[in-house]
């Protein structure tokens, strides 16, 4: 599975970026080439949110069914999600500098993305602070769920700090791309798919490592070691 998704990542990323750079208009209204950041920015932002939901879902599955693998997947998702969040913030800062003239603004989406990063950090910090893996898994899983309940509330409260007039401050994204050039939309979606595939690769590889690390005392891991050494 890993090579399959790996190749898919490469093809989609190259294809999407090629499309984005060479098949699209050079300028988008008043933004020059800068708008091309969208290809990375939107994909990363989508992944950051989707991965948090997936992480919480696996955490819930782990707590309900008491399966160790679910916890392992949840903890494997966290670093990838944090990277996606960071990437979204970072590219967003560059884009903001070129189009709004500021690196950072206390805009609702940016603030929520930052808080999402804090939640990922909290999850990983709690996981690594507990020595007993069983307790670490379950405690972090519970935290992920509490975070999931709070995310909509946080997002909404930042969006509308004055309950008497809930005006969205941010530029809105229209479903279906609005009046966006279809080529840009296609490229953006393809790169977002590439991000998704990359997430599969990274998470599967990390899960493999976590399993090997946790099961290092079992016989099958030792036999695997012997096999590897014989092949050398």
């Amino acid at each position, binding site marked *: 599975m890993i090579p399959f998704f790996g190749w898919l990542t490469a093809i989609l990323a190259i294809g999407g970026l090629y499309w984005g750079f060479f098949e699209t208009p050079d300028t988008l209204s008043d933004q020059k080439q800068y708008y091309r950041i969208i290809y990375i920015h939107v994909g990363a932002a989508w992944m950051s949110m989707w991965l948090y939901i997936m992480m919480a879902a696996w955490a819930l599955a782990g707590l309900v069914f008491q399966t160790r693998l679910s916890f392992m997947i949840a903890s494997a998702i966290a670093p990838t999600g944090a990277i996606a969040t960071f990437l979204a913030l970072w590219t967003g800062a560059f884009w903001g500098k070129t189009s709004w003239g500021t690196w950072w603004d206390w805009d609702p989406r940016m603030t929520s993305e930052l*808080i999402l990063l*804090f*939640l990922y*950090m*909290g999850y990983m*910090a*709690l996981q690594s*602070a*507990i020595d007993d893996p069983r*307790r670490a898994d*379950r*405690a972090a899983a*519970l*935290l992920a*769920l*509490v*975070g999931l*309940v*709070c995310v909509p*509330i*946080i997002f909404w*409260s*930042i969006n509308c*700090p*004055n*309950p*008497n007039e809930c005006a969205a401050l941010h530029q809105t994204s229209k479903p279906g791309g609005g009046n966006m050039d279809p080529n840009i939309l296609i490229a953006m979606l393809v790169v977002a798919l590439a991000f998704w595939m990359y997430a599969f690769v990274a998470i599967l590889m990390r899960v493999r490592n976590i399993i090997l690390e946790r099961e290092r005392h079992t016989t099958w891991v030792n036999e695997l070691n012997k096999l590897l050494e014989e092949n050398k």
Partner: protein
Amino acid sequence: MRDLTLAMRRRTDVLTTLFFFIIVVSLFPLGAGTEKIILQKIAPGVAWVAALLASMLALERLFASDFADGTLEQMLLTPQPMFILVLGKVFAHWLLTGLPLVFIAPLVGLQYYLPNEAVGTMMLALLIGTPVLSLVGAIGAALTLGLRGGGILLSLLILPLYIPIMIYGAGVVSASAMGTTDLQAYFSILSGFLILALVLSPIATAAALRISVE
């Protein structure tokens, strides 16, 4: 009840939290300058940030001593549902750390030249908001029970979750200081948070305690 008695015997714990709040609040004018306009502007935010920090510092002790002497395990074994015991403990914790902040709030008003109506609003907002802080914080306290560096970890886990309460808690005071009279919506939202936290937090805390103690 037991927690209250114990706390009364160690009165310094309560006073420490209270003085921490007062000191943090007093530091800001010294750092940001004592101009009236600036102070009035930052007062709600400062008061709420100080309240968050004060209630968070006290959280560490919420379950720690019971965990250390084994009382917590006994509590988990009792036939009563755990979340009721948790609710009791959180309530005691709030009486000792949250409620004093409500009564000390007029002092903040004096220091920051707030109009009287705003002070009243702040007291009411703190009265509704601080129990939410204790309730949400209890989840974090239960999760980090007995860990190395639990305190700093606790702040990392809990502070992001405090954000909505702070936004509306500070928002209502700002609105009131500017002379807005229509504060109903703010208080409805804060009360909504309180009800949500009252229902969900004890359950999550009880689950977290089981994970931590086992």
